[in-house]
């Protein structure tokens, strides 16, 4: 790990100021479960670390008119304890899957959304796209854990966020804070002006064509301060992660669903798959097919087949198609309480 300057802002505006200084390579510290690894491996070598943990507003969970607002620094452990979040079962399922008490206690929901890919080529220093001399290593090398969707371009890694599929299925928005712009919304905080913008989570992630693009829309000097979830009424949700091991491990694939079932028929459905593409992978075809149908083993299975029908596995990861198919089927059944253990 290289030496760095450590700063501890107490307001969003201060954070923006620390992050925005020209010529300073900054990194944001939330729970630190990913950043520490990245810095130790010198995959991130910021000259300044901006620790957000002294900003009180980032810990709040509040009810808004039409939903719930969650501060980005709310930890996994605190999330499951908050009664305001009782209706969001799919988030609880995610926390359950993170089998480390340490990560549950220090990892934050905002940090999770910004977690960089676990692609071993990236983590071994070949850049976000895992390229050597212009050749894609995931394409030609060991891609057993890589993408089966959205992998036509240079990016073959899978999005590492555990919460993103669930949050996206809920229709979450994220609040991005950064320097005030002329056109964007402006908020005053501690006498300083910052820009803040609510963005649907599905627009937050990008499939990069170059290493420099990163895997989110966050520009230097910006950070995620809050997430917003719509009201949970009428919605049944579930996440099903396929974990090889019972301990701390990344899912091989995951699926998260939100369903509105009325009179035994699916009225509305949202299905998002995780760890299968450079971004959380939404399957509208499967969701659409379910509408108007009863949900049972057979229809869940058929919807899962639709969900994976456009998968394009790489040389070593065809098995992931079967795994995510199972995850979709089981998440659907779990949401309506019909998944037999």
């Amino acid at each position, binding site marked *: 790990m290289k030496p760095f300057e450590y700063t501890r802002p107490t307001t969003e505006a201060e954070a923006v100021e620390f992050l925005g200084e020209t010529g300073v390579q900054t990194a944001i510290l939330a729970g630190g479960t990913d950043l520490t690894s990245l810095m130790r491996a010198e995959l991130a070598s910021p000259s300044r670390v901006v620790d957000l943990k002294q900003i009180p507003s980032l810990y709040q969970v509040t009810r808004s008119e039409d939903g719930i607002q969650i501060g980005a620094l709310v930890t996994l452990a605190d999330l499951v304890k908050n009664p305001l979040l009782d209706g969001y079962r799919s988030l609880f399922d995610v926390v359950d899957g993170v*089998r480390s008490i340490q990560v549950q206690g220090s990892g934050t929901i905002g940090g999770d959304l910004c977690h960089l890919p676990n692609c*071993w*080529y990236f983590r071994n220093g070949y850049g976000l796209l895992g390229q050597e001399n212009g050749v894609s290593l995931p394409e030609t090398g*060991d891609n057993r854990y890589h993408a089966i969707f959205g992998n036509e371009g240079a990016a073959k890694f899978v999005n590492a966020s555990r919460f993103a599929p669930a949050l996206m299925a809920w229709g979450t928005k994220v609040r991005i804070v950064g320097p005030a712009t002329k056109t964007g919304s402006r908020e005053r905080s501690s006498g300083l002006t910052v820009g803040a913008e609510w963005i649907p989570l599905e627009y937050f992630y990008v499939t990069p064509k170059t290493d420099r693009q990163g895997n989110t829309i966050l520009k230097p000097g910006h950070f995620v301060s809050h997430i917003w979830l719509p009201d949970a009424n009428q919605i049944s949700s579930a996440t099903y992660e396929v974990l090889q*091991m*019972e301990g701390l491990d990344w899912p091989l694939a995951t699926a998260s669903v939100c369903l509105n079932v009325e009179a035994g028929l699916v009225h509305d459905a949202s299905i998002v798959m995780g760890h299968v593409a450079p971004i959380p992978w939404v399957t509208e075809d499967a969701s659409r097919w379910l509408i108007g149908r009863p949900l049972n083993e057979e229809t869940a299975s058929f919807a899962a087949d639709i969900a994976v029908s456009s998968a394009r596995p790489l040389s070593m990861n065809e*098995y992931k198609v*079967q795994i995510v198919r199972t*995850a979709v089927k089981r998440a659907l059944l779990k949401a309506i309480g019909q998944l*037999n253990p």
Partner: protein
Amino acid sequence: MVERKVGWEPQGSHALIGGEIQRVDGKVKASGQAKYTNDINPPGTLFAKLLTAPHAHAKLVLLNIDKAKAVKGVKSVIVMAKLGDEIRYEGWPIVAIAAERPEFAEDGLRAIEFKFESLPHFVDGLDLKGAVEADLAADGKPLKLTKSLGKSEQGDVEVALKEAKHVHEGFYGVQTITHMSMEPHGSHAAWDGDHLNVALSTENVSGTSGQYVQPVGVEAMNVNVRCDFLGSGFGSKSTVDVWDVACAKLSKVTGKPVRLMLSRTTEMQIAGNRPSAFAEVTVGCDAEGNVTAWDSRHWGSNGLEGSIVGLDVTPYVFRPKNRKSIATGIATNCSPERPWRAPHHPQACAYTQTALDDLAAKAGIDSLQFFTKNLNLTSLPHIYEPELEIAAKLMDWKGKWHPRGKGAGNGPVKRGIGVALHTWNGAANQSNVTLKIHSDGSVEVVTGSQDVGTGTRTCIAQVAADTFGVSMSAVKVSLGSNQFPKAGASEGSSTIGGVTGPVRRTTQQALWKILDLVAIRHTVDGTTLAARDGKVWSGDKEICTWKQAASLIGPMGLELYGGPVTDDEGLTNHQVGGVQMAEVAVDTETGVIRIVKMVAVQDAGMIVNRLLARSQVYSGLIMGIAYSLCEERIMDNKTGRFINANLNDYKLPRIGDIGDLVVEFYEPESEYKRGVIGLSEPPVISTGAAISNAVANAIGVRVPVLPLTPKRVLDALKGAKG
């Protein structure tokens, strides 16, 4: 009359030996007071770090350390590879830097200018075809990836296979794993004039001082090696390695103590691994299921050397009359193997007893019946047979058995059971001890052995306390220094016999001397005397306390030296047998396997400490579950690198992955009488085959290669569907 003969008491007569006794060092270990090499960091210590090669095969074409030397806090820089050197695997050490703080050492590493010129690499020990093709393509050039490692043949395999009622052909294998010791390799070195004091993470305390002589330039008598506590080694820590030499040199140059412990990644890359092994097997049996023929070709890689699991253990345990085995090694650009708990046995067991289980399935015979029926092909049928019976009861084999893939239930999760068996030598190593009995009755045992985590201290104390009839707390055990009487390396399950043998003999001899003094003082017949419960007795009559007895030896105390145990003393023995059964639940829609239950029935001769012995078997099962389900060194063919050399991607089981472990010792009088036999290696051997067989029983398909990851399970299921 109490017979005075070196040996163990009859079964059931020992007060402490054979009992369940907590580790004497359990508290200091659990509370962090125990200092491992990795903890040794006295003030003034410099921190050393390594620059290693990030290539599988390359030439070092530029190396300039001038800027590194000038970095703040850097005290010394040592070059470990020369310009023009051929780097033959990833992690190859290039430079070592000692600095006042770890981060200064890192700054120093960053300031080194270096460049490698890539050379072609070959890292896949499974790819025999690719290795052969590469050799052919290299025609005449020195590339020689494959080499014949011989052939072993007995009887007439061709005829036997022709005459066999059932013949099965299959492919099996085990991938490479690393040792994954909790404490990485490394040392702390400090010079005092000509004297080198080293704290070394080693399982060979007595055998390492000499290894410093030539590379460091020191006289052996001036090397002091210590290892009070060891965070395991599993066979990988018997040598003084290049990084330990660098550590000693850095200390000499700087005149300061230096600490060099490998990082986890470097540890995984270069500090030892268990080689891969793959086999194509043809086996045949008659209509009753008697195995009549074995024909195999096996290959794999142990790194640069290109060696592989031996013909001596192929086929494993079951040795049909007609058998033929051919072994081929593949040299890969991977770091060399080091002995890993029961070297080569787990691999040989995995490709032998899976093939036999497949033959049983083909013959339509219950696996347990099949294995039992063929025990006449093993060297220990008298041990395996009763062990299999015990295991079958503990597993409820009859209740749970079903033909392959025909378990009850329509859900995606299928249950299955499997069995396998193993053997290990476990003979005692050559260890010496010094025994001191002080006039206050306290007892000291000193030996240059080490406690690799198995409980050596406890077992020594237990034997001494048992012989003298005193409490464990009356005995002090000192080990872990090369200044102590020479003791063998803790390899091959040799320590328990190696240390308890001489301790028993010497304590018995000391006891008799003291009893003779008691006889004179109290005018009783010395041959009627015995020590127990802190007292000396003649029959039922209490003569004196142990303290009073010990006081008779005078203020100088009594000191005896005990040489290594010999075969004819009856204290130790060798060659044990064990059986294991696994019950698994396999999710056929995700390929995820859960261990439901493991049963291990193990022979270890006379058990010294039942609690620690059980611990050993638990640890064998857990390591076995690890290499069966998840643990795997993944070499990336593209970059030639060990792509998962970190604890995120190198998957290890946690407590939830382990299931219910049931351990039973097979210790009838016949086995007890054999004396002490090592136990560390055996319980890790047949776990892989047992689990693989259970998975095949559950899903009806063989998943050929360990570890049985979801990918391999689903690929096998898909392959079976066609």
